[in-house]
């Protein structure tokens, strides 16, 4: 999902750059006042870890392979602010060492993959974590959040490409999102597997199951971040996603020539009016497909969490809460 240079126009580059600079500055301020344990070395090594872990190839069907993206993994283990800095540095280094993702497009890539993905993912994790107790709840929330983070990042990426006129929204959105809804399952699976393995061997490395008050505070902060980022994302998507019916259609209805058009077709269409995918109902169908995908992902995350936790869940509840 790294956007190379040459795909975004200057206006989109500037807006995305400003947004990601704001998000990054907010994360850095929070880190300065609330530094993580082991400080800068931990951030640097976590970034190196994500960079290397992204290069582990997980075999998928045929000769293809997938890999971890890691935004939600970093956010869940180290907190959303550290994850923002870690993912930004991963992207900067990938740009400088692999020429992977553009230099001018760095702001846009940081926005998609280092700000939207970890913060929205973390907010979803914070919201769903309390559905189940203990490690099982944590794994469920993490897997679901990982899936969502990939999908949100792809929506944001599609919006940036469409804003630049690289490809129209009605093509980029379904194309990007449908592919990443599948990729999201891989991300959810890898993130959950890694988290479960860490919880099994070194549970003390994961953040403690917070006390009641601190936990509520943390959740509120995560949701606040998530909302702020969601607003930024909505600003990109808003120009495209109008829930109203097609403009011409409304005019036709109001002026009353809609039925005339319907009764006297100019030529016999092989498809009746609304049956072509992506014609007029694309907004609604996209939303329905998205919700269905999310439901499937949630069920998948639940099954995964059940499979990865020890039977009865009592031991894990004692261990990790």
């Amino acid at each position, binding site marked *: 999902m*790294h*956007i*190379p*240079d*040459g*795909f*975004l*126009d*200057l206006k989109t580059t500037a807006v995305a750059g400003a947004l990601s600079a704001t998000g990054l500055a907010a994360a*850095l301020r929070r880190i300065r006042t609330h*530094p993580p344990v*082991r*400080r*800068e*070395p*931990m*951030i*640097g*090594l*976590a*970034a*190196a*870890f994500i*960079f*290397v*872990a992204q*290069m*582990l190839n*997980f*075999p998928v069907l045929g000769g293809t392979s997938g890999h971890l993206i890691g935004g939600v993994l970093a956010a869940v*283990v180290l907190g959303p602010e550290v994850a923002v*800095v*870690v993912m930004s*540095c*991963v992207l*900067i*280094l990938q740009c*400088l*060492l*692999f*020429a*992977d993702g*553009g*230099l*001018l497009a760095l702001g846009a890539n940081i926005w998609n993959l280092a700000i939207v993905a970890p913060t929205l993912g973390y907010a979803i994790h914070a919201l769903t974590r309390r559905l189940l107790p203990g490690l099982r709840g944590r794994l469920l929330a993490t897997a679901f959040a990982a899936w969502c983070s990939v999908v949100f990042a792809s929506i944001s990426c599609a919006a940036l*490409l469409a804003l630049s006129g*690289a*490809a129209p929204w009605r*093509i980029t959105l379904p*194309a*990007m999102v449908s592919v990443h809804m599948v990729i999201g399952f891989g991300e959810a*699976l*890898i993130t959950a*597997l*890694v*988290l*479960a*393995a*860490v919880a099994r061997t070194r549970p003390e*490395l994961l953040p403690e199951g917070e006390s009641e008050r601190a936990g509520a505070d943390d959740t509120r902060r995560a949701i606040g971040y998530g909302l702020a980022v969601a607003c930024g994302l909505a600003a990109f998507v808003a120009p495209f996603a109008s829930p109203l019916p097609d403009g011409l259609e409304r005019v036709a209805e109001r002026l009353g020539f809609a039925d005339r058009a319907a009764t006297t077709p100019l030529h016999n269409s092989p498809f009746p009016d609304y049956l072509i995918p992506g014609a007029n109902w694309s907004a609604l169908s996209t939303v329905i497909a998205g919700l269905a995908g999310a439901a499937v992902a949630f069920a998948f995350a639940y099954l995964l969490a059940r499979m990865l936790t020890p039977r009865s869940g009592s031991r894990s509840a004692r261990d990790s809460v």
Partner: protein
Amino acid sequence: MRLELLERRGDPASPVHQAPALGKLLLTLLFIGVVVSSPSRNPILPAAALLTITLVAAVARISPGHLIRKLVSVEPFVVSVALLSLLQPGGVAIFLSMVIKSSLSVLAMILLVSTTRFGDLLRALRRLRLPGIMVMTLALMHRYIAVLGDETERMRRARASRTLVRGRRRAWSDLAAVAARLFIRSSERAERIYHAMCARGWRT
């Protein structure tokens, strides 16, 4: 795990290598900005940009083979994103212009990184007011990526030599275990580095 990183190439005494990193970084950004914002129908500007790159590469004694090899390794990503643009009226022109623009930008980036030391780039970023935490994170990453890569390779080989079962499912859980182990080792290493830094009088 062998990392195919971009590294310094060509003649280190050439004027391009010797030029200050900050200037090179800003010039590269300017170059990419001009290329990206140029009107897509005009063939003169891309040609001029390509000529510039060829000249700079010649002065720095960077072989065209190196540039082309690196470009080809990035091109699949570029083309796969650009393919989306084909699905619209007039898509072929947009597709071609995007591929040309992004290839020129990638070439400029490769040239920048092949002629500049990473430490100098970091110093340039520092002078551009990149916050200290970011600079330090990038420096630590650059230092430890190769270390973690080697460690991963050793763990994978050790696991492979002890695993007699083949299959995708097994591969996934094994790789996840390697990643988890790698995370644990990185955080232990971070702890050692932190203590070593504190012992040498480092303060935030």
